[in-house]
Every structure is written in C-alpha cells, then in structure tokens.
C-alpha cells in the first residue's frame, strides 16, 4: 500500500516535526518560524494523503528491481540542501530573514531531490524519466522561478531609481523601456534570429538591471530622500508670515469638504470675515464644541500670499513654562483655499488666548469660544 512517494513524504513530515520541536524549545513560539514549520507538517501530511490516494505510477516490486540497479545520477541537490540548512542555523542566531530563506531552500531541496530520485527509478528509459519528472515539477518550478525573476527585476529596478537623482529617474526609465521595446522589435523583424543571440540579449539585459539594483542598494537612497526621511520636514510647520523652507510649496487650490465645516473664514482685501455654518450674518466669535474635531475653511481673496494661524490656548511644557499652541495652514495665493481641523479639549474660560489671525496683518482677529 505504501508507494515510494509516500515513504518520502513520511520522512519529510517527521523531519519537520522534529525541527518544529527543536525550534519551539530553542527559540520559543515566535509566530513566523513556528507557523512555517507547522505549515510544513501540514503540507507533509497532505502530500502523504495525496500520494497514498492517487496510486499514481506505483511501480510494483519486480519491475523496480531492474531500473534501480544502476547508480543514481549525480545531482547538485545535496549541496544546495546543506547550504540551506546552514543558512537556517545562521538565521536562528541572526535575523529571522535568513532563517526563512534557509527554510525555503531546505524545502525546495527536499521537493526537487525527492522527486528527482524517485523519477530516476520510475522506469529504465532516462528520457521517459526526465519527462515524468518534468511533468510533476514544471507546474511548480515555472511559477516559482518566474515569480523570483519578476521580483528581482522589480526590486532592483526600484533600487536603481532610488539611488539616482530625482530628474535622472525619468530619463533612466525611458532608456530601459525603450531598450526593451527595441530588443523586441529587432527580434521580431529578423525571424531567423538564432536562439543564441536572443538568450545573450536577455542575459545581458537582466544582468545589467540586477547589477544596477545591487549598486543602487549599496549606495543607498539619494541624500535628498534620506534628509527628508530624517527631518520628517513636512510634518513641522513654521507659522510666521514669511515662507517656510519645507512646507510652503504649490499649496492646495480646492478642498472638497464644503459640506463638512463648522465655519468659513475669508481674508477679503485685508479684512478677516468669519461665517459660522447655519448662523446668518458675519461673526466676531466662532463657537466650537469642546474636544470635537471641527474643520474651518480658510479662503484667501487678497493679493499676495497669506496663511491662517489658530492660537488655541497654552500647554504646560515644564513647571511654570507654558508654550502657546499654534495650528496654521500653508501660505496660499489669492483664490486658493485651505482646510484647518482643530480639536480643543479645554474650555476657553480656563484662560489663555483663543483666536484666529493672519500672521503679518495686525488688528484682524476672530475670537474662538469653546463652552
């Protein structure tokens, strides 16, 4: 009843169970490693059931004896398997990434080597054996290799662009794509192009991209991005009248949230005009419910660039030292509009300043009242 393939999978499952136990003792149940090994056990059991069930190509005894006589063909899989196991060990000590990579290599070895050895003894004719092996493994190998290839190309292509200057990125992009297109056209025009040349073009192309990728990765991201990442400069805002080096660039033209605002503040010819949603007429004070995120639209209708500053009380930074809370929009030209969302937890009667103002313009102030 036990076909050769099922014996192989029983071995695999036992090995997985043992390594699962070792892993749990040594490392403890960190999710990735434990799940991967547990998955291996589950897959092993599935394969056992499958191979028992499908009764495919089970060679009865008297037939197997003839084919298995000659020595098994040389194969590089034991070497790869050993390297994989080593990587797994290193992985357990260093980063889990190596552990997973090692694990994948080990699994791949088991599958490939197992089926290879089994296929060799399927029948006496090597060509037929190769065909049988190809039939089982190709539907698995092709997608995996293709996926790895695709992944490498995409990642390395992205790495190159990250390393290169911002403007050069577009140029490089055009070069690569037109090169691929040109290669396609050339091969299409010459139908009798020998296979050799095609493979050369493909190999050279992919090597170039991968090399570029490694180089890009080594040299790291362009310093403009690195600086942007460190300072997180889009986050902090200077709310003075002058232009802020980082944030004030090409401000927003339109804000599509007209139906979700508490009040609209317009800076018309140097005068700050405030209107509360649903309350007729212009207002000197805007009432905002306590600790409720409320949005205010600021429209600049005066020539020149202005921003809206909201001062919302003060917070105690350290004993006795208070810092004024400021929220502001970007500097916007005439005709543009911005959204400012305020959440004020403390009532205004607690003291401190609560008002809206346009920095650089005196005397234009709208009081904020939080009941």
């Amino acid at each position, binding site marked *: 009843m036990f076909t050769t393939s099922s014996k192989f999978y029983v071995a695999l499952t036992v090995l997985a169970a043992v390594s699962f136990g070792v892993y749990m003792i040594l490392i403890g149940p960190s999710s990735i490693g434990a799940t991967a090994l547990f998955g291996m056990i589950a897959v092993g059991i599935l394969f056992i059931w499958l191979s028992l069930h499908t009764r495919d190509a089970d060679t009865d005894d008297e037939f197997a004896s003839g084919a298995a006589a000659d020595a098994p063909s040389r194969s590089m899989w034991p070497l790869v398997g050993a390297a994989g196991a080593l990587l797994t060990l290193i992985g357990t000590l260093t980063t889990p990434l190596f552990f997973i990579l090692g694990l994948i290599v080990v699994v791949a070895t088991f599958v490939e080597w197992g089926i290879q050895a089994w296929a060799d003894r399927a029948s006496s004719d090597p060509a037929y054996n190769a065909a049988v092996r190809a039939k089982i493994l190709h539907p698995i190998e092709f997608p995996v290799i293709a996926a790895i290839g695709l992944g490498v190309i995409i990642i390395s292509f992205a790495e190159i662009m990250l390393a290169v200057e911002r403007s050069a990125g577009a140029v490089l992009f055009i070069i690569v794509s037109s090169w691929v297109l040109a290669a396609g056209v050339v091969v299409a025009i010459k139908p009798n192009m020998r296979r050799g040349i095609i493979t050369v073009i493909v190999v050279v192309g992919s090597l170039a991209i991968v090399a570029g990728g490694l180089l890009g990765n080594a040299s790291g991201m362009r310093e403009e991005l690195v600086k942007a990442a460190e300072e997180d400069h889009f986050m902090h805002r200077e709310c003075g009248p002058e232009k802020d080096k980082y944030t004030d660039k090409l401000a927003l033209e339109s804000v599509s949230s007209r*139906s*979700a*605002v*508490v009040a609209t503040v317009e800076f018309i010819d140097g005068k700050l005009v405030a209107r*509360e*949603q*649903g*309350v*007729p007429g212009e207002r000197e*004070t805007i*009432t905002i*419910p*306590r*600790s*409720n*995120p*409320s*949005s205010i639209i600021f429209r600049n209708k005066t020539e020149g660039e202005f921003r809206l500053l909201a001062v919302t009380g003060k917070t105690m930074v350290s004993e006795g030292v208070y810092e004024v809370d400021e929220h502001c929009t970007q500097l916007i030209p005439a005709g543009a509009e911005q959204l400012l969302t305020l959440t004020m*937890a*403390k*009532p205004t*009667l*607690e003291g401190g300043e609560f008002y809206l103002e346009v920095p650089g313009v005196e005397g234009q102030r709208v009081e904020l*009242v939080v*009941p």
Partner: protein
Amino acid sequence: MVSAGQMVNRLTPVLRRLKFLPLVGFVALAGCASNAPQDTWAPEGPNAQMIDDLQKPIFAVAGIVGLIVFGAIAFAMYKFRDRGQPIPEQTHGKPVLEITLTIIPALILTVIGVFTVRTVFDLAKTSDTEMVINVTGQQWWWEYDYPVQEELGITKPIITSGQLVFPVGTKVMLRQTSRDVIHSYWIPKLNGKRDAVPGRVHLNRLEADQPGIYAGQCTEFCGLSHANMRMEAVALSKEDFAKWVDQQLADYQAPAEGTLAKEGETVFLNQCVRCHQVNGLKRADGTPAIAAPDENVVSGAAPNLSKLMTRNTFAGAMFDLVTPECRADVWDASRETFGEKYLAGVSEECLNQTDLRSWLRNAPEMKPMYANPALLTSTGGKYRGMPYLALSENDIEKLVAYLLTLK
C-alpha cells in the same frame, strides 16, 4: 364523504378574503392607540404640523389604492375560481388597459411629488432663524450649549444636557453635531429627525406652539446604550424662559461651612471633578476647578452639572431626578401653570433618591456602558460612559446633599 380537501377548497376563496381582514382591523385599531409621548401623528409645532398636513392625505391615498387592488383580487379569486368551466381564452394582454393603468399611478405620484418638493424646501428654510442652540450628541447623552445671544439675555455661554429648554413661538435653529458616532436628534411632536454626524454641522428647525414637555429619542444606531439615549424638549413662555436664563447664569453659591453639603463638595472635588464641570466651583486653594473629561472619556466630554437641579432628568434623560408623583405634577400641569412648576426645579422631597443613589453606587449596572477597565485597551484607557467609582455609602449621602444645592 366530503373530503377535507374539498371542504378546504371550497372554503379557500372565502378564507382568502378573510386573510387580510385582521390587517384592516389593525389599521382601524391604530386610531384608538394611546397617545404615546413620541406619537408622530400628534403635531404640536409648525414644522411637525407641515409634515402632518403632507402625510395624512398620502396615507389616505395609499389606503384607497390598497382597498381597490385587494377588492379586485378578492373579486377575481371568488368569481373565476375553477367551477369546471373550459380552459379560458389564451389572451396575451390588452396594451390599452396596460398603458392607462400605468399612467394613473404616474399621475397620482406626480401630484404627491409636487407637494413633497414644496414641503422639503419650506422645511429647509434657515434665513428666519431667531435663536441658535448647538446640540452635540455623544455616546449615550445629549449636550446643549447656548451661544451668547444678547437679544435673549444670554450674556455667557450656557451648557446643559438632557432637557433642551427653549422659548415658545420662537424659530429655534439647532446646529447639530456629534463627538464620536452618528446619532439622530428627534422630537416627534415638533419636527422630523436629523442625524448628528461627527465632523459635520446639520441644521434642524425646532418650534413649539404651547408650553410643555415633548419627549424624543436618539434614532440612529449608536452602539451599546442607543436605547437609553433620550431627550426632552421643554417649551417655556418667553417670560419664563427669561427667568430660566437668569437662573442658569446666576453665580455659583458654595454650600455653607460645616454642612453635609460642604463635605459633599470636597468629595465632588476629589472624585467627580475629573470629568464633570461645575461652573464657578473653586478648589480649596481658590483656583477654579476645571474638569478634564478629555483625559478620561473617549468622546472628550461629560455632562456639565452646574444647575443640575433645574433639570428634571439625568443620565441621558434615562432616569428622572423627580419622583413619579412630582413628575406627573409637572408633565400634566396646565399650559399656564406649567412654567413656574418647571422653574421650581427639584425640591428636597421631590428628589428621586432611589435612582440617584443607585446611579452613584454603580452606574454601569443601571445603564450598559463601556466603563469596564478590562475592555479599555482599544480606547487607550478611556471610558465610554460613567465608570464604577466604588463610593462608600456616606460619600453618597454627602454627594446627594451637595448636588441638591446645585440650583
């Protein structure tokens, strides 16, 4: 022997017509249903009246059309039942009849459509607002804050909860919003409902013809205690409303030294003030006691308890501050006497001791809220509702005495 099948068969057409008799009965019975506090067919304000004037004829039209259709079906069932007649003529339909019976409903609906559109725009008018009240919903109670309006005598913002007090015959504009999820403010006898959506301000008109208390309830599913998030709109005559405003703006009188209420105040200062604000309350060292609900409550607000005893309800208008007798006395008061009965507020003997004490003893027991510390990891340790404070009995005694002074 007449088999049961035949008997059933002969009875069926008769029974079929009886089938919807219970339904007609129910509709008739509806007429004499009780006048529930949230009855949508008993308007008491111009807006609800406008809706009712539109609604009643449409119910009538629907009823008549229904009776016509059921009559036709019942007649057909009775007349054309199988009495052995030959297989009927295989007619495929008369287009003329089809088209007429399509146009008639279309005409009826266009008429209804015209009236609907007119009423929609009438109800949505906001230009003639005479008074503004900001209504804010949060999980499981309503807060009302009256912005400064000199012409009504409101010189400082007034904050109350539970009962919305407003003058009779004034076009009040409610600016509704919410601090956490979507709620819906609905006083059936005064106007249709409008959702209070966080991040948005929605406008809804409120106006009453006569003084009185009008009940309402949150009608957009808002979680655990959606059923217990109630509100009442109290309409007072203009003079009574002015007296109410002065009452609300009056300064805070600390209780006299040595009395039980004074000890209650100290208990309040070290327990309740973490969330509840009482305007004018001072700590021992004279600094004003500012509540910080934003550190303890997810919605960032807790009911403002200054002048608590001028209101008749507490805990999201779920429980009454007054005993049932006093409540009936206020609710059933005649139009004239209602004003000063309400303004009298909650007296010592009228106070609903049982509910208030059990609320102070263990609030989550009385009203399901997310106040169980075990579930607080997802909301960053903040409550959604009043937690269990483990107050001792005499603390509760003192607190009740102190709360009674908040008039």
